[in-house]
């Protein structure tokens, strides 16, 4: 290999062609399209909606936004209805994230042992998470259908006349949505747990076996602490998602029956795009949700860091 720049005739012409665009130009060509898109669809709406949340404004009213200060926020926070939606969302998040974590971790523990077709099985389990939420919502609607859906049949109700109507009964609708969310997102938790589990070295378990540690100890002192950081990240992601739950809920119940599955995200949508198009109020509500999510996330992240330090 002759290492240093012996200009050879074949490459120098292409080199000259490349030189016409400087590195700096290339840099700008790559960065600005993305940046402009981000500013248009993320950054601008973020700040514009912050402004709108302090105004009385409706996109269909043909009137300019009118500054009202904290009135929207005060109205939202004083509304009992609103608190019930928050409570509902909280209940939904707790149930769905709790089940996803438990089942996901359990599945990961099972799939950690390699057996015949375990790779194939893992891929199968991951499929729900790759589907579009709207599609999931629509076909679960069919699955839950009391007349011909397979769900009731599977859990033992063979007579449609007495079978529960999951999406139409107020006491069941929330659980129906939890079931779908768990079905769809448990694989995600499992995947993260699985990668955490595979990073635990075998010799820790071997050392524990020689030290006469019980399998209970091995789980509490080796497996759990080593997986904890990734498990908490999975919980963090799922909690944030649960607070924003919209697409699957919209597809399944649209927030009904009544307000039985009216999560905060659905309420924001209702305020903004149904009836009177209360853009200002919807923005204020969206900001309240954002603040809650940031607060909860911070609590989690603190826990994750603590788990990492051991």
């Amino acid at each position, binding site marked *: 290999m002759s290492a240093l720049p012996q200009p050879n005739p074949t490459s120098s012409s292409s080199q000259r062609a490349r030189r016409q665009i400087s590195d700096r130009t290339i840099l700008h060509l790559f960065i600005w399209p993305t940046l402009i898109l981000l500013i248009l669809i993320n950054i601008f709406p973020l700040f514009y909606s912050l402004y709108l949340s302090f105004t009385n404004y409706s996109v269909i009213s043909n009137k300019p936004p009118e500054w009202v200060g904290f009135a929207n926020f005060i109205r939202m926070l004083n509304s009992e209805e609103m608190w019930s939606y928050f409570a509902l969302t909280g209940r939904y998040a707790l149930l769905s994230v709790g089940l996803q974590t438990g089942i996901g971790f359990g599945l990961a523990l099972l799939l950690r042992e390699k057996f015949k077709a375990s790779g194939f099985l893992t891929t199968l389990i991951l499929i729900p998470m790759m589907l579009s939420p709207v599609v999931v919502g629509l076909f679960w609607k069919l699955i839950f259908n009391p007349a011909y859906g397979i769900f009731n049949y599977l859990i033992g109700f063979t007579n449609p006349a007495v079978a529960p109507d999951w999406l139409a009964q107020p006491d069941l609708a929330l659980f129906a949505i939890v079931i779908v969310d768990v079905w769809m997102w448990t694989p995600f938790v499992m995947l993260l747990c699985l990668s955490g589990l595979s990073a635990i070295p075998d010799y*820790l378990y071997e*050392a524990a*076996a*020689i030290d006469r540690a*019980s399998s209970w100890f091995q789980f509490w002192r080796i497996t759990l602490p*080593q997986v904890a950081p990734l498990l908490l990240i999975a919980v963090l992601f799922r909690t944030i998602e649960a607070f924003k739950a919209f697409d699957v809920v919209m597809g399944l119940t649209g927030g009904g029956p009544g307000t039985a599955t009216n999560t905060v995200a659905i309420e924001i949508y209702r305020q903004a795009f149904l009836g009177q198009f209360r853009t200002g109020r919807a923005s204020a509500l969206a900001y309240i949700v954002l603040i809650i999510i940031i607060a909860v996330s911070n609590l989690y992240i603190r826990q994750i860091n603590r788990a990492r*330090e*051991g």
Partner: protein
Amino acid sequence: MTHVALHNIVKRFKQVTALNDVSFLIADGEFFVLLGPTGAGKTTTLRIIAGLEKQDAGSVSFDGEPVDGLMPADRDVAFVFQQYSLYPTMSVYDNLAFPLRSPLRKLPEADIRRRVEQVAELLRIHHLLDRKTARLSGGEMQRVTIGRALVRQPRLFLMDEPLSNLDAKLREALRVELQHLQKSRTSTTLFVTHDQIEALTLADRIGVLDQGRLIQVGTPTDIYDRPVTTFVAQLVGTPRINLLPAVRDDGTLHVKDSSLKLPVPAQAALPAEFLLGVRPEDVRPGSGGEFTGRLALTEPLGAETILHIRSGEQTLLSIVPGIAPFRLGDEICFTIQRDRLHFFDQAGVRLPS
């Protein structure tokens, strides 16, 4: 403590035979070192004794009783892994106390504290007891790992290259500590290493493994002075032994492609062609030496110097104390210590001499 016996152990991993009919005995209180290059089957042997791996044939017995059916926990051995196998999220104290807290033992907490502190004192990690293991340096971690083996009084210590992840200085210090510990406690120990210096300094006896076969078992002196094959001869000793192709011509021995000639020792029955082994320390430069050669290279190591002496087409290594006053290209006279020659046949097996 315990004496250990391995009988005709065979272990296969799919197509590869990792251990091929390995048998040896470790006496009560002995420091036995398994020496061999990477992939020789040393760690596999250790894992089979600990019960972490199941042999395909043969049996392991402690004090004459077979332990093949016992789980690792029931064999009562202590294992020091090559990696620092410390429990994360537990303090150094808890790591050390852990083997004693096993429900099978039920020691009172005061006893545990006494023993942990004793071991911590011994390994000079007393100041670390309250620390989390994630915040330790490599040397400290390995000492805690060794400490976790020492707090118990196991029947047998198994150590899998415990010093190989440490830097040279620390390795030396811990080697001395280990030797001292073992001698003062007279605990039966099986120590695995690929480092011949560790083997020679620590061992009461050494077993040399190569490709799953046990080639030689003996004291360090046996291994060094009477290696049974050229493989063993080359494995121990730095710099390496000089192996020179030679022919016998009546009473004289000629090294091929050089002017070296030696009388054949009276009692040796040598074939026509063979390999002559000469340890570098037995090649002694000095005025009045019977052979001459040209100095091709010197490696001054401070306390000693390695000389590469060309004689014809052959190069002999010689090691001399201190910094040698020779210059490259010098004509050098040297003698060869006649009573310390090694003879091997063409296949590398030692010939009686």
